[in-house]
């Protein structure tokens, strides 16, 4: 016995007032990580969890075996969707500040996750998103107005007033309802995927959690069941370095990448540059193809950075350097894709400026329409008796009586 007992407490590399320091991030150069065939054995591809799959190099040129060779239209579509997501976030964040909505969460800096991954799935694949995956709802055409109405809890709210802002759903487009409880959607995705396999249907499922949420039980359950039944599911960890005020080390991220969490169960992991849309797309596509061919589950870690506050209730300047994001070595996903398109000769700064204007206008227009359906304080309002519906498939007597009571008290029934 020699060393003094001592409890290790993880510490981020920089706190407010200190210089940002991302030296802890293990980066591979673009193109450096091999791309195995989709039927490679799990034991042979552990390197995918430890390196960093990147396609775009520092000069914004696509490199190496993971280059998905997307055509111009797809690349431009991706850029448009990312810019739209950012414009939407920006507007909603400001609307919260103005008191029009009660709460908001941006995906600032993480847009390539939802858009890049979303593009890699088939329409029939079922998504179980986390709260920072608004991009998935946007790209599957949920409609900005519908999404805004949800945030407004107004007369057209898809949730009928029952959820806080940002907890969208879209059953028609195979987008599950978002939960306020972290990670609970993970086993749902595995169960859904098991169901598809039981029924012999070719669709796969995907779900997302944040780095911090990997500590929850549902993360473990999902990985275990996915591995045991070889379920056709993609489980994603959006590692944006922070979980409110705690950095990813509090979920064990400073010892081993999150992508490695399934290795002990024989589940392949891929660690991807989450701000490189091409890499995100390519890794997801690889995992999707694998899942569709009885290859089972894959855990994908998307290395990115939470550019904004955790939510409108948060103040990150209390716990991290103000300029941390601008030092993040993987940059800004929107900017990187734009630069790539420019490099390819498909795009210009002018086009970018007008795209941003266009998206801003689109969002503004949608907002105008959305508020015309009411806000929490301006009519038209949702019918209050909706409060008692959908607790069960049919309303039991006790709820009908409670509804009567409330309506009577409000003078809406005699």
């Amino acid at each position: 016995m020699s060393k003094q007992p001592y409890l290790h407490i993880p510490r981020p590399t920089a706190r407010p007032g200190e210089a940002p320091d991302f030296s802890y991030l293990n980066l591979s150069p673009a193109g450096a990580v091999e791309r195995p065939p989709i039927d490679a054995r799990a034991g042979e591809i552990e390197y995918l969890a430890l390196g960093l799959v990147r396609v775009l190099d520092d000069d914004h040129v696509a490199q190496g075996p993971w280059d998905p060779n997307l055509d111009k239209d797809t690349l431009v579509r991706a850029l448009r969707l990312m810019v739209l997501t950012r414009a939407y976030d920006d507007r909603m964040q400001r609307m919260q500040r103005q008191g029009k909505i009660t709460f908001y969460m941006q995906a600032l800096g993480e847009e390539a996750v939802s858009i890049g991954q979303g593009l890699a799935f088939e329409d029939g694949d079922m998504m179980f998103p986390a709260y920072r995956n608004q991009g998935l709802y946007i790209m599957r055409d949920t409609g900005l107005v519908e999404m805004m109405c949800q945030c407004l809890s107004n007369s057209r709210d898809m949730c009928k007033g029952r959820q806080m802002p940002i907890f969208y759903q879209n059953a028609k487009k195979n987008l599950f309802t978002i939960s306020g409880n972290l990670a609970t959607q993970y086993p749902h995705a595995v169960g859904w995927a098991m169901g598809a396999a039981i029924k012999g249907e070719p669709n796969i499922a995907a779900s997302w959690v944040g780095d911090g949420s990997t500590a929850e039980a549902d993360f473990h359950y999902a990985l275990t069941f996915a591995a045991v039944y070889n379920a056709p599911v993609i489980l994603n960890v959006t590692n944006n370095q922070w979980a409110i005020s705690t950095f990813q080390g509090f979920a064990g991220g400073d010892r081993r990448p999150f992508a490695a969490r399934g290795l002990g169960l024989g589940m392949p992991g891929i660690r991807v540059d989450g701000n490189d849309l091409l890499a995100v797309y390519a890794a997801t596509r690889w995992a999707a193809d694998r899942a569709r061919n009885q290859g089972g589950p894959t855990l994908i870690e998307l290395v990115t950075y939470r550019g904004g506050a955790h939510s409108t209730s948060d103040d990150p300047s209390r716990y991290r350097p103000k300029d941390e994001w601008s030092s993040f070595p993987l940059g800004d996903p929107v900017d990187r894709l734009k630069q790539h398109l420019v490099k390819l000769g498909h795009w210009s700064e002018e086009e970018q400026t007008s795209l941003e204007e266009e998206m801003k206008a689109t969002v503004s227009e949608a907002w105008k329409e959305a508020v015309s359906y009411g806000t929490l304080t301006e009519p038209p309002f949702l019918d209050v008796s909706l409060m008692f519906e959908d607790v069960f498939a049919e309303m039991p007597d006790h709820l009908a009586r409670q509804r009567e009571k409330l309506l009577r008290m409000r003078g809406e029934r005699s």
Partner: protein
Amino acid sequence: MIEAIRSAHDVMLERDPSVVALGQDIGYFGGVFRCTDGLQEKYGEHRVIDAPIAEGGIIGVAIGLGVNGLRPVAEIQFADYIYPGFDQIVSELSRLRYRSAGEFFSPVVIRTPCGGGIRGGQTHSQSPEGIFTHISGVKTVMVSNPYDAKGLLISAIESNDPIIFFEPKRIYNGPFDGDPDKPAVSWASHPRGEVPEGYYTVPLDKAEIVQSGEDLTIITYGTIVHVAQAAAKAAGVSAEIIDVRTLMPLDIETLRESVNKTGRCMVAHEATRFCGYGAELVATVQKECFWHLEAPISRVTGWDTPYPHAFEWEYFPVQRRLVDGIRKLMEVA
């Protein structure tokens, strides 16, 4: 009752290809209580699925199966082990339909053996129904005989609402009249021990008047239904005994009518007393029947302690305790 539960599975697995069962040891082995005996062999390992030892995972995965159009029947091996799945039940299963305004739901049935009387000690004897009946969005059932068990389980599997389905393990093999010194009896001679072969249902929103009477009303469910019958007989009173069956939603009408008639009411259950399901029964009855009550509503329940191995029969609301309760209630002038 085991055979009735097995038969309900069998009928539904046969009728509806979307029904799947999952749980620990339920597949190849047929369940530690044998409630799924032979069903994996009959329907295949994709319909009757052995699961990892992870109650939260079983329920979480069942929700996903349900969202994908299947009708999962999940077994939790003992009700005492349902707690690791509590978050998925409360925050997800019970809330999906509401929070998505009906776009999503998952018709999961969670079956689980509950209650004591088998020397299972504190981790194989609990009756946690009162925790679930407080959760909006989930229905809670506790069965008391084979006929109901099968009919209610079929109704539960067909229901589009999530349901927690409690099976008192003490009466798996026969009714129990609350006298631990008597030899065990089988279901054979019980009027509800006989189970029709095929498909039938018992409604999920109706209490059952097990026997009618004039002197007092005993409201109960599960094992204690049988104890109450024996106790009423022993006490020599004309008791109206109500088996609540579906605890949530509660069939208030049946309770109200009965207590308004008898003027006296005893609530009995095996679970601990404080904040147990019986508290809601008392609260409801006192509100509905206040002007007819001739005595305070009394409760005979398990004590507010864990279920001790050595003192099983001191803990359990045995026949004698119910007789005592009935006498006291009848004494009130």
